[in-house]
Each structure stands twice: as structure tokens, then as C-alpha cells.
């Protein structure tokens, strides 16, 4: 006979195990679940989901996970645990997307894109679709195909405050074209109005990196830039030193906000919207941010101030948000049908009107504000790491971003930073 103690022990252990096992999430089999990180777009998504339910009877649930860091961790953890939703987005470089595809988490939707005379595929701007396409010659060892559905796009541009331009006696319709003009204009406005010349969230390295890449491509051309990534040209090359020196020139010109190297993009957007700086560098999403922070703000975008006439300017952009279909989802077909509906003209127009973003598909120009419409003209000249055949190692980018912050803080010279980047490049290449 077992004693009471043994019986109680067995009961306790059983209860413990039952509670643990019983924690599994219940799933509604009829609902398409979508995970995303875009807080500013949640309301628009919910309205679209409601509209879709009324039209088809299918329930779509958009689940927001914020901030983006947390979202990324959640998606990776869910992928490992086999718990990805029907549709999800990927944040991160092309290598991440490739890893997800190789691990069998994403549906190759090429056949859906190309059915009915490629009707779905033709809707998109080629630049937006390029980010989710892996070609036959891709270096990531991914089966060629289309693996995602872009829902919007972004472009990085310089921005200027037109009211401050007027106040400083500058022509508000003539933004600076060259790097020299840019500094002169910023200094004039700074002197006349006592505001900052330039403000940007350079505490977040990626904004520095985007600008450095644009100036590098303008300085040495895209081919030589990509050769650096391939390891054929060192970062200590004089053209790279020239690029890094631009940041030193900015520092020495006195136009940078004093705390620019620790400033977040949110702080920079806040400062620019309050008229505390003449210039900023930001993405097209800023239109929505400024509309909320300062609806009366009079500003305009302008292209990268040129540092060389020899090579064309490339605009950092094309990478917006994309949705992918979970290869293990029970609702693959339904999920794809929903994404097809979401990227139709009517829905895209609703979406961009509501969120002030650039569309992923063509023929939505009428729904755009004049500011956003002005950015569409840049679509033919975009560049983004996710469209390059090879990407720089994240550790090299990390050292570059940190080095650029050190230059604008006056801690290191362009030569020192170039040396550190090159040493890191050589170190990671040996792995």
C-alpha cells in the first residue's frame, strides 16, 4: 500500500505537469493571424481587416509587437519553436531573410505572383519587389523566387525647414545642391536665427551609415563601393578617407547639434518639428511623424548634397515593410489571397492616405501628398543593402558607425577610423 505522502507527491507532480502542458496557446483555426511591429500602422491594418471580413467573411487579426527589437526576437523565437503566425514580417538585413527561407519558414510565392499573366507581380514597383526576390545568381544559396509581399516603401532624404530658410534670408525654393552649399546655408541660418544647422539621430548608427553609403557612392561610384564590400578595395583607400572626412568637416563647420552623436531619431524628429534645426536627414516616414508632431511645419525634401560631379547620386531607399507567408501555416492559400487583396490599388490608396507612407505598387500617385509625390521621382535611382548581391559584415558596419560617431564627437580622425574598419574587415574575412 502506498502511503498518503506518496499519493500526495504523485498528485502534486501530475498537477505540475498538467499545468505546464496546459499552457499551450489556443488557436482559432478560422483566423489569419499577422504579426507586425508597425505601431503607426496598426489602426489602418485593423480597418483593412474589418473591411476584408465584410467582403469575404475571413477574419484577419493583426497583432502588434513593439518595439521592433522585441518583435525581431519574438519572430526568431517563434520560428525556432514552430510557432510562427500565418503571415509575418522580417526586420533585418537580407542575410536574415535568406536564413528564414533556407530554414523552410517562408512560402515561395512566385507562382502566385506570376499567375494570370503576372497580374500581381506587375502591380509592384520593381525596386520594392527586388527586396524580396532572390535571383538565380544569388550568393545566399537560396532557391530563386519571390518570398514576400511589399506593402509600402521608404526613401532616405535630406529635409529643410522652409520657414527658417525664409527667416534667414535664403530662397525656400532653392535647397543646397553641393556639400559646400549645404554647410554655407546651414551656417547662415544658424548665425541669423540661433538654431542648429543640422540635426539627425546619429546616436542610432544606421542613420550615419545610410548617409556614409550615399556619399561613398557619390564619391567613388557604386562599382568601387561594392568592390570594397568584396574586399578588393580597402577602407583605408583615399576615397574612403575622403568620405569619412566629410563628417569631420561637418563637425568642424559647427553646424551639427552639440549632442548629435547620442541623439535618437525620435529626438531629432522632435527637434526638427519644433523648428530647432534648419536641416535634417530622415526617411519618408518622417512625413507621418511631422504630420502628428507639427501639422503646420513648412518643410521639403531635397537630394543628397553632392560631393562629386563625377559619379551620380544614389538614394538610400526601396526597403519598406514586407509580409511573408508561413510555409507551415494551415491557411497558406487564404493568407496569400489576403495579401493579394491588401496590395490592390484601392487598399494601397487607403493605406498610404491613412499612414502617409509611400506605396509599394504603382498607380497610387493620386492618393499621395505633394511631399510624398516629390519622392516618387527618386524611384529610378534607389540603392539599398538588401538589393546588393553581397552585404558588408555586421561587425564592420558596427565599427564604421561607431567610428563615424567618434569623428563627429571629435574623438578620432578619419584616418584612425578607416584603419579600425579595415582591421575589422580583415579579421572577419579570416573567419
Amino acid at each position, binding site marked *: 500500500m502506498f502511503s498518503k505522502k506518496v499519493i500526495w507527491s504523485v498528485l502534486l507532480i501530475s498537477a505540475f505537469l498538467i499545468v505546464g502542458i496546459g499552457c499551450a496557446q489556443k488557436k482559432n483555426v478560422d483566423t489569419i493571424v499577422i504579426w507586425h511591429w508597425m505601431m503607426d500602422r496598426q489602426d489602418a491594418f485593423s480597418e483593412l481587416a474589418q473591411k476584408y471580413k465584410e467582403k469575404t467573411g475571413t477574419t484577419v487579426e493583426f497583432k502588434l509587437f513593439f518595439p521592433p527589437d522585441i518583435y525581431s526576437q519574438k519572430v526568431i523565437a517563434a520560428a525556432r519553436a514552430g510557432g510562427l503566425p500565418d503571415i509575418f514580417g522580417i526586420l533585418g538585413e537580407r542575410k536574415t531573410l535568406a536564413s528564414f527561407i533556407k530554414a523552410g519558414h517562408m512560402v515561395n510565392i512566385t507562382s502566385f505572383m506570376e499567375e494570370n499573366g503576372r497580374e500581381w507581380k506587375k502591380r509592384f514597383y520593381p525596386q520594392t519587389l527586388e527586396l524580396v526576390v532572390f535571383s538565380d545568381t544569388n550568393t545566399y544559396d537560396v532557391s530563386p523566387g519571390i518570398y514576400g509581399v511589399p506593402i509600402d516603401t521608404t526613401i532616405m532624404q535630406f529635409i529643410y525647414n522652409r520657414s527658417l530658410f525664409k527667416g534667414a534670408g535664403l530662397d525656400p525654393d532653392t535647397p543646397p545642391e553641393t556639400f559646400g552649399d549645404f554647410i554655407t546655408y546651414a551656417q547662415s541660418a544658424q548665425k541669423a536665427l540661433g538654431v542648429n544647422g543640422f540635426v539627425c539621430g546619429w*546616436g542610432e548608427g544606421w542613420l550615419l551609415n545610410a548617409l556614409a553609403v550615399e556619399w561613398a557612392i557619390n564619391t567613388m561610384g557604386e562599382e568601387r563601393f561594392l568592390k570594397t564590400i568584396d574586399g578588393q578595395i580597402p577602407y583605408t583607400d583615399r576615397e574612403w578617407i575622403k568620405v569619412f572626412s566629410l563628417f569631420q568637416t561637418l563637425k568642424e563647420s559647427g553646424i551639427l547639434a552639440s549632442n548629435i552623436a547620442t541623439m535618437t531619431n525620435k529626438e531629432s524628429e522632435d527637434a526638427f518639428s519644433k523648428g530647432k534645426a534648419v536641416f535634417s536627414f530622415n526617411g519618408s516616414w518622417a512625413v507621418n511623424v511631422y504630420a502628428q508632431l507639427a501639422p503646420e511645419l513648412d518643410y521639403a525634401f531635397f537630394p543628397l548634397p553632392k560631393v562629386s560631379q563625377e559619379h551620380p547620386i544614389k538614394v538610400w531607399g526601396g526597403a519598406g515593410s514586407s509580409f511573408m507567408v508561413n510555409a507551415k501555416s494551415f491557411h497558406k492559400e487564404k493568407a496569400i489571397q489576403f495579401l493579394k487583396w491588401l496590395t490592390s490599388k484601392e487598399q494601397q490608396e487607403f493605406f498610404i492616405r491613412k499612414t502617409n507612407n509611400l506605396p509599394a505598387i504603382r498607380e497610387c500617385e493620386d492618393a499621395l501628398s505633394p511631399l510624398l509625390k516629390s519622392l516618387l521621382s527618386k524611384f529610378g535611382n534607389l540603392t539599398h543593402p538588401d538589393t546588393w548581391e553581397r552585404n558588408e559584415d555586421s561587425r564592420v558596419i558596427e565599427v564604421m558607425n561607431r*567610428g563615424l560617431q567618434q569623428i563627429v564627437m571629435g574623438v578620432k580622425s578619419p584616418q584612425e577610423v578607416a584603419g579600425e574598419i579595415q582591421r575589422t574587415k580583415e579579421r572577419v574575412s579570416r*573567419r
Partner: protein
Amino acid sequence: MNLSLTEKTTNFSFIFPALLIFSIFYIYPFFYTFILSFQEYDLISPPTFIGAINFQDLFSDQGWWKSIYNGAFITLWALTFQNILALLLALAVDKIIRLKKFYRVVFFILPVLSEIIIGLLMKQLLISEPTGRDVFNHFLENAGLGFFAQNWLGAEKVRLVTAWVHCWKGFGWAFVIFLAGLQSIPEQLYEAARIDGAGAWQSFRRVTIPLLMPVITLILVLTILGTMQAFAMILALTGGAGGETTVPVMIIYNHLGNRLAGLACAEGIVLGIILVAVSFTMFFISKKIREKYGVLPG
């Protein structure tokens, strides 16, 4: 004592849930971290064994050693400035002043607040305006100390200011532990010392310090462990400031974010080894001091 199988099973069944949780959440991750440090792993694809390459990479990474230096710099400030301040305040609250309970609560508010809140709050105070006219400088100017006003989070001061903010946030912990230690010293010892003709300084040196030595050791070790692993407050305050305030956990966090999980694990292990070595050294030094003072190791 000989126990029957049934009794052994019964006893084991009571510790089984705790043992299971401990194994899953502590022992398994510990060994898994160690295994991952010898692998290349992007958290999605299967890991690949690469030997000690992550460690080689780490030892030749200037950024990593700079972060260790930054962590050590802040730790040095915390060990000295923060703990001396905490001890002085604990002595004051214990012996001298009234409103003891009020001060206990006041000094303990800061450690209770979230590190992110402290970081963001201090950032707002130090650099709330991009034009440079921040709240703290404004206060200095109004107080007639305008000559002190400067860019507090600029290249020259950012590391020092980060250390000060860390100490300001952290001294409450040490204060509470010091106070508990001081209150455990029997009053009779001070009375005996007074009868023997000891002054305040001699009582402090010959009674308080020796009897407080186990507490001091504990605080020093906790300070080292806590400060070398500081992260959230610094991230919110400076974001690393071009490597000037980048601390080891920030590097580990960034590498995990870039899905270099193997490298991040190697960094975690090296940091862990450094901290264990420093902690044991502190225990050893403290034991020697206690022996010198004639107090048995506690």
C-alpha cells in the same frame, strides 16, 4: 540514517519541481551557452562548430576591450565614490540624525526606479535641447555657477557623467545594506570602547570597520558584478556614444541583435570568467584584511 526507497522517493518528489525548474532555466542554459560559444549560430539556421574562433575574434576585437575598460572605469567610480557616499549616509542615518525612516525611504527610491527611466530622465536634464541650452546648465547658470556649464554628454565628459549617474542611481542599495550591517553591531561594543578611552575615529576604525568587513566585502562584490553588467541606463542615457560609454553587455546585446549568437555567448563567458576572478580576488583580499584585524572570516 537509512531511508527506505519509498521514503527516498517521497522526499525526492518534494524537491522535484524546483529541481526541474532550476535545471531547465539555469543549468541547461549555462551549458548551452558554453556549447554555443564554440559554434557559429544565427539563431535560425542549424549551428556549426567552429572551434575557438569566436574567442580568437573576441580577443583581437579592440571594441570589446574598450568596453571592458569603460565598464572598469564606471566600476572604479562605483567602488569608491558610490560606496563611500553610501557608507557616510548610512553612518549619518544610523547615528546622528532624526527622521531616519524618511531618509531610508528617500535614499532607496532611486534603486527602485527603472534604469531606463533614470537614463532617459538624466538625458532630458543634460541634453534636453539640441541647441545646447539644457536644464542642468540652465540651473548652474541661475545658481551663479555658469562657468561649470558645458556639453555634459560631449566627448570629454560623457564617460565620467555616465559613471556619476550610475553611482547616483546605485548608492541606495549599498546604503541599505550598510545600514543593516551597522545596526547589527551591538551598542555595548561602542560603550566598551568609550570606557577604554576610544574616540569617535578609533571606535569607527577598531569596532565599526572590522565588524562591518563581511558587509563591505559583500557590497564590493555586488558592486563589481552589478556595474560590470550595467546596460539599460547607459543605453538610454548615451546609447554608447561612439564607444565612449559602450559597456560589455551592450556589445553582447548588439551581437545577439545581429544574430551572432556564438560570438555573444563567447563574450558572455569571458565576461563571466573576469567577474568570477575579480570576485574571488575580492573575497581573498577581504579574508586577509579580516585576519589582519583579528576578526574571524564570517
